[in-house]
């Protein structure tokens, strides 16, 4: 075992892992994080706390992670390349680990243009792949990116994002291979609606034996409404929502759409359980955390295993 991460333990024991996420508030106070974490705590092996998602300022992922840790739960912090240079990243990583955080995601970060401070300078000192490599060397070699020794190095379980749906498609397996070579332990994919495409990507991943080096957690997002489905199809970059999904939601009344969305999420999980190389699921139920338990239970993933 490389770390104390519960996620690592669950995966090492051969179980399908489940993670979900909590978006921290756009203001101070611990209540919102506690409330959301409480809704999902028994149904997941790790709770992601996003990092200034869509370039909108929120409570920092590390602060949110500490709140979750203090509740006795398992935080997964996220760190984007957009907001910190390598000094700040490493300082935050050793600080976070010292406060009990042992799992983190290394991401590029949405461009500042999308957020509430488009006039800010995006840092982008190092990219997500170099960040992965940096955290791996901090953990396994005990050295900072600049080469000096770390007193008491952080043992982080390292994650990243993977998007099988962005283009060009031919690149997407090679990109995962790059992250694996850099030292990533697990990836959480972009939410999946086009199952065929995802399965094609997974076949490419398995073909190269990458599934044995990295644990792939398939991203699942339940649709609340057909409006949400259309928005994600047309307005969100890198998202692939097939017409069948829209049609299925159009086929039920507005009041029944949320139920249908939850049903579809459960069906997706059931199907992907059979997909070779899938090591677990990352459920992104944005502002809908109260339904996560239904999805986990409905997919036969409750209770979470003892490790």
């Amino acid at each position, binding site marked *: 075992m490389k770390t104390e991460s519960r996620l690592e333990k669950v995966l090492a024991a051969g179980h399908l892992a489940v993670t979900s996420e909590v978006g921290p508030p756009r203001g101070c106070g611990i209540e919102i994080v506690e409330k959301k974490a409480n809704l999902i705590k028994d149904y997941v092996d790790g709770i992601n706390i996003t990092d200034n998602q869509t370039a909108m300022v929120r409570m920092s992922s590390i602060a949110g992670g500490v709140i979750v840790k203090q509740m006795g739960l398992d935080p997964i912090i996220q760190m984007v*390349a*957009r907001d910190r240079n*390598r000094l700040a990243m490493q300082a935050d990583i050793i600080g976070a680990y010292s406060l009990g955080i042992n799992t983190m995601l290394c991401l*590029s*970060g*949405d*461009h500042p*243009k*999308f957020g509430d401070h488009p006039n800010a300078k*995006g840092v*982008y*000192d*190092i*990219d*997500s*792949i*170099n960040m992965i*490599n*940096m955290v791996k060397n901090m953990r396994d070699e005990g050295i900072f*990116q600049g080469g000096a020794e770390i007193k008491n190095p952080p043992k982080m379980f390292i994650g990243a*994002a*993977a*998007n099988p749906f*962005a*283009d*060009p498609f*031919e*690149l997407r397996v*090679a*990109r995962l*291979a*790059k992250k694996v*070579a*850099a030292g990533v332990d697990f990836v959480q994919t*972009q939410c999946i609606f086009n199952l065929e495409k995802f399965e094609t990507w997974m076949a490419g991943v398995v073909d190269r034996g990458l599934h044995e080096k990295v644990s792939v957690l398939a991203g699942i997002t339940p649709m609340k409404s057909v409006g949400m489905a259309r928005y994600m199809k047309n307005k969100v*970059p*890198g998202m692939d929502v097939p017409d069948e999904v829209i049609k299925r939601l159009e086929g039920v009344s507005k009041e029944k759409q949320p139920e249908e969305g939850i049903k579809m999420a459960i069906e997706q999980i059931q199907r992907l359980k059979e997909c070779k190389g899938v090591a677990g699921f990352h459920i992104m139920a944005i502002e809908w955390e109260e339904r996560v338990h239904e999805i986990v239970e409905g997919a036969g993933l409750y209770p979470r295993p003892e490790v």
Partner: protein
Amino acid sequence: MITAEQKPLQEIIGYIAPYGKILVVGCNECVTVCAAGGRKEVGLLASAIHLDRLKQGKTIDIKEITLERQCDPEYVEELVSSVGEVDAIVSMACGCGVQTIASRYKVPVFPAVNTKFMGASKSQGIWEERCQGCGDCMLGITGGICPVARCSKSLLNGPCGGTSDGQCEISPDTPCAWRLIWERLVELGIEDRYEELNMAKDWRPAGGAGPRRIIREDLA
């Protein structure tokens, strides 16, 4: 070339408001090519300033000179005979030229253009950013396409997950640099290059270590 765009007229007029005799200096190189500060633009700016002053019932004396370049002291020296007669200089060159003039003459110097980026022409009238002067050119390993200047996040191991129809998430008009790099590597038959890890950039040659300079011992 270095590209630039003329500042709003009111801003330039604001700078020279206190002065009755000015010199407008153009540059025959980069700003001529991007039609921002060459001889023609000097003429147009002088004319516009005249129209503005005349409307106010005031006069202004404007000398118009276009130098071969403004970034070499030898060329800037050519203004010496004209500077004595003016109260202010408006330079239509890039920031390099404006500063060279300012370092030589005790007269106030004002920029008439906003210097933008190092770019190349796509076609007439269209210039695009190509280089950010990072001081450690990696074009040899990215198929001739620069990820520092052309990727919105300067990723050295891109693309990120935001590519949409081959374009960058920030705009459908901006190609994803890494998609371009990938296509070029494929075209050249060297797509294996893609999986080699490009190490974290040393930003010192890019200006991270302070204002840069080059000294050629054999020439200096």
